[in-house]
């Protein structure tokens, strides 16, 4: 499924980023960071039309030769980015959406934890588990 899942704060610093396989970490960091360009573009475009404001899913941000990068933004402007391997063509848009929804729910749980300081890195095991479930099981 996903090869990289990232949660990015409103201020654009990473709150959580994980990828498989782990050796390509740097590349994913660059990819996710660059994708913020498109996220910002889409958010500002959404802002213009009121009707779209409730749609949190930003769709495909941009494809690369190897990956497809999808985006999602919460109402508090926290961004979720899911990177999927391009060769993985079985994933439908709806599945990506549901992955984001799951991620959002779990993220909300993390935020509800009174011991979690919003703005800190996410270290929740439950969240980690959800993310692991969405990642490819290759390792």
């Amino acid at each position, binding site marked *: 499924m996903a090869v990289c899942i990232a949660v990015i704060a409103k*201020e654009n610093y990473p709150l959580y980023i994980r990828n498989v396989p782990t050796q390509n*970490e740097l590349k994913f960091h660059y990819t996710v960071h660059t994708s913020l360009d498109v996220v910002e573009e889409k958010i500002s475009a959404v802002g213009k039309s009121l009707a779209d404001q409730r749609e949190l899913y930003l769709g495909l941000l*941009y494809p690369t030769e190897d990956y497809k990068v999808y985006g999602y933004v919460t109402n508090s402007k926290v961004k979720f980015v899911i990177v999927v391997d391009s*060769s993985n063509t079985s994933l439908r848009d709806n599945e990506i959406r549901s992955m984001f929804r799951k991620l959002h729910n779990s993220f909300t749980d993390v935020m509800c934890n009174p011991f979690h*300081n919003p*703005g800190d890195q996410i270290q929740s095991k439950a969240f980690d588990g959800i993310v692991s479930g969405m990642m490819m099981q290759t390792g």
Partner: protein
Amino acid sequence: THMESQEEKPIIYTMENKPIVTCAGDQSLFTSLYTSLAQQLPREPMEWRRTYGRAPKMIHLEANFVQYKEELLPKEGNKALLTFPFLHIYWTDCCDTEAYKTTVKEDMMRWQNSLRAHSSADWVIIVVETTDTKKKNKTNILPRSSIVDKIRSDFCNKQNDRCVVLSEPLKDSSRSQESWNSLLLKLRTLLLMSFTKNLGRFEDDMRTLREKRTQPGWSFCEYFMVQEELAFVFEMLQQFEDALVQYDELDALFTQYVLNFGAGDTANWLGSFCAPVRSWSGLLLRRPIDMEKRDGIQRGEASLLDLRSYLFSRQCTLLIFLQRPWEVTQRALELLHNCVQELRLLEVPVLEGALDCWVFLSCLEVLHRIEGCCDQAQLASNCSHTVGLWAYATDKLKSLGELCGLVSKQGPTSEDLNRTVDLLAGLGDEKPETVHSLQSPYKKLKEALSSVEAFERHYLELSHAAMEMYRAIGRLRSARLVGKSLAEFYMRKGDPERAETLLQEALKSYVSEGWSLPVTHTRKQIAECQKLLGRTEDYLQTSALLAGDSNLTTEERKHFCQEILTFAAKSGGKLTLSMGVFAQLTRLQFHPATASVHSGAILKVELTLRCFMPVSVRMQQVAASIHFDVDHGGTHGRSKANQRQKNPATVEFNQVDSAGPPSSSSSAGPLLELDEIHDRSPTDNSLNSTGVVCKNTHLLLRRHNSNSPPNTPNCVSPPTVAMKEGTQMLKVQDVTLEPGNNSVTFTAPSGQPGTYTLRQLCATVGQVQFVLPHIYPSVQYEVYSQEPQLTVEPLSEPLLAGLPQMVKFTLLTGHYTVKKGDALQLSNTDTMPILPSTSCALVGESVLSIQSSEKVTSISLPATPPYHTLEFQLEVLCIIPSGSERPTNERLTNGEVRHRPRSYSHPDTPMAAIDQRMSIDCPWSIYSTLLALTFYIPFKTKHSLLSAGNRKYIQVCVHNVSDVNFTLADMKLTEKQHVSLELQSLNTKTQQLLSSKHIVFCLWEVRWKDDLPSCLQCVFSANFSPLNQDVSSYKPFHYHFQLERVTTLYSVKAEILPPAGEQHCRSGLLCGLEVCITRLTEPAEGELAEESKTDTDGPKTTKLMYEVADSSSNWAVCGKSSGMVLMPMTANATHKVQIEVMPLFAGHLPFPKIKVLKYLPHNAFTYFCVENDSLSLLDKPLDDQADTASIRSRGSIHSVGSVDQQQKGVAMPRLEPFSPGQVFNHTHARQVLVLPSTDDHIMEVNAT
């Protein structure tokens, strides 16, 4: 520009082609009408109703009218649609029945038969009617309708609409026009019907074919040709949308096959697509139809890239027809990514770099194609659609350059050259379309791969174009990523300077947004550049950052740390780096915690430094510079020093992870400073509101720019810092800083009193200094100087006067060093002698030597260093002042006036207090130190004179107001002046317990022999000690008092006489009050002297005033209640007064009060002393308040008016009371029985 390939074998017409309509019959007739027909047919649109629920469309119909030939009719199995004749027309202008029967009908029959043989039902017969034709053959002229009827009956079996008449087609008449219109409408209708029918049939066949795709032997390429045929027809009909749908369906179908193949499902026909890629010439979008590739597909020889290229070229053409160029770019990018993926999935062998060539060429081809159909403004505003292709091309060219050895400093090797040749071979020859174009993708790639210089030129051109476009559309991160890629290129080219600029820009963005991994990676690259550039300072600064970067492996970190240490070990110029990258000051602690010491004392400052280095680093020195402020106010005394405890003992510095992302925004901001507020009403001070206010809102509510988190400790290039020299320093030599937290302890200088502020911190290792330019929040400590202080306090509260009490002396030496032989000189006083008891000792130490002389007690002190405390105790006794003694002024040894302590009442205690001052000469000062102790007198003593006729008694009452229980013993009363006087004690006990808050009364009877002196000087004395103490501890207590006018001068007797004839008084009836005043003694000397002023001659008399008053309203005084009596001043002189009184109640009523007062006539001489006495009279408590009320009022009136009278010289007569004991009232407290009046019918009961 299209259709250049006329020479291609099967000519496929698309735009230029039109649906074929065959024309049979009279060719010359058709030729004469062709122009009008071809022009008018597309003029009106027709609604085309579609099958399968597709939306109806308005369509302009055109047709290609060709002469009918039987060969044009499709043979069985021929599915070609482009060459399919959709309508067959038979033209005739025959109006001659004979001619019709002999030739035309036969011809028509043949035509019809051949159509029927090919099962073509789309035909129409047009009969043209002209006036000329009618005139020609007059004999056989039949009505036109008859020919038409004949044709209809012969051919149009119930399909009368298949025969149309065109009247006067070449005339300009309304009839002609009408006829044309109906013909055109007919033709359009028939054409559409044919389309619907034939295309429908085709689609059905096509679908059937598609359904067979799972069967063996099915070929995608064959199917491709079939569906493309449909696409062609739609395109021919200018239904580009429909045409595009056909290609998209083919695209999707193929994609699905590839995916299925990837999933293990193989199809035979896919074999050709899995063949190794031999050509990578890129997309070709300049032809509407690339016949070359189409042939390949048709022959089943096309490679995957060929098929994809061909498909995309067709989609591209249609999209451009549809004026959707930006979809082309988007689809192109998807296509290129997809192809790369598909080849990977199908495991097609590809020469390394071949795909890069293909992608590169394709990107440029798409961009060229788009540029060809858009103007510059359109292109500029749609950068976002094209920039992806630019970036992709840049990327691919870069990897090609790297592959072909064009990026290295040395240039390509022979191996690289061979690879280049192989790659170029796969491009084939340039396509004829671009042969003459100088900027064709083909030429660009060939050139770029030809030399290092050309490559660089092309690569830079592309990179900059991509970066500029990204910037233009605000995708700064993407631009920086391209920039980073460019930087890597520069680095490989050996141009670190340009590389660094680009890297720094990228780093700034990563740092500001807190992406630690990219930060580390980019910083490593920067370090490499800086090293190459020989920028040692920057390099070491970056190295320090990297050495502390937890994203790196320990090995890498050690390497960077070693770089610094290696430089540090070299001799050469010194280098200053920012401390923040090396270690962080996390905590600062003072010992002692107050951060305030006296000068010369030891103050330790403990720093906690968190070292980021991966190994322990030995520092030659860690130093902190200090700013010193002389504090003039701080040199006096201790109180100031105490105020300064605001300095916190421990300062925590903001914990900022140097390499990590900015943690939460809350930790970055300043701390909240809150204050309580109370708003009170100004009138009654009641609370209106209360709350909490934030004092530093201006700092907290600042707008934070979300793009730049406030804390960026890992700034791109830390500002150069300088250590300010010349100030005082805290220094520690040879400190080894371990990774993590280290504690460094300094001894702070504390010589001069003042405020010391820690400003900078500097750690030195060899030639390298790490400097923290500002210690924030600022840290201060205080050094103060203190004067010696001597204080005295009671060992136990309260100090009681009259008893030996211990007091504690505390000497704080301050800055003074007590030398051997220094002594404190206490001036002795009588009121508080210092008892030479043995208990005068230093607390916990040896006994002090005390030497007492007459005036001075000297206490020698032991040698003591500064800022030490000496404590010792002394026992003192405060003498209780005995009463009325007048203080005498004395001078102390030092010349000061001795103040006799006087007791005063203290608000906190019922005991009277005495402030006892001590004057002490200290060795450190020329001035005496004055200390005060407050003692409390445990007793309150009162005396009173009691009389019984002529007999006199003295009562002393001692009230213990302290909290201590005492034993009172040996109470004595003595009179000092009159020896003959005897005071006989009526007290039974010699020892008396006097508990706390209790009172003891003592009584003595005064006995005298000759005369009672009018004034007595008495001393009450007793011994007292706290309860249960030894006899020796009894201390004396004296109480002096004086009694004046002791002798009884007058006795007053009164009688109440019932009314005449009555045994008893009755209420409501007048009765008589007889007052008898008797002089008891001869006038004494003092009295005579006082009175003689009034009457100098004659018998001595005095004036008395009597007054009957009843305060309890028992009596009504009728008539005169007061009067004056002239009293001879001889013994036994008596005066009687009769007064009428009426009892108001029945019962035993007390006698009305009878008051006797001295009457002083007006006399200028006595005026002033009387005046004074009068005032004192008013102040004195009188036994009977009610009786004196009138006097008081008179007196007060008098005194108020006194100033005026004094000025006028007129004195008023006035009254003066006798002293207690001078008048003895026999009837005091006597009662008389009053009976109720006989006719009382109202009984009043008064219950109180």
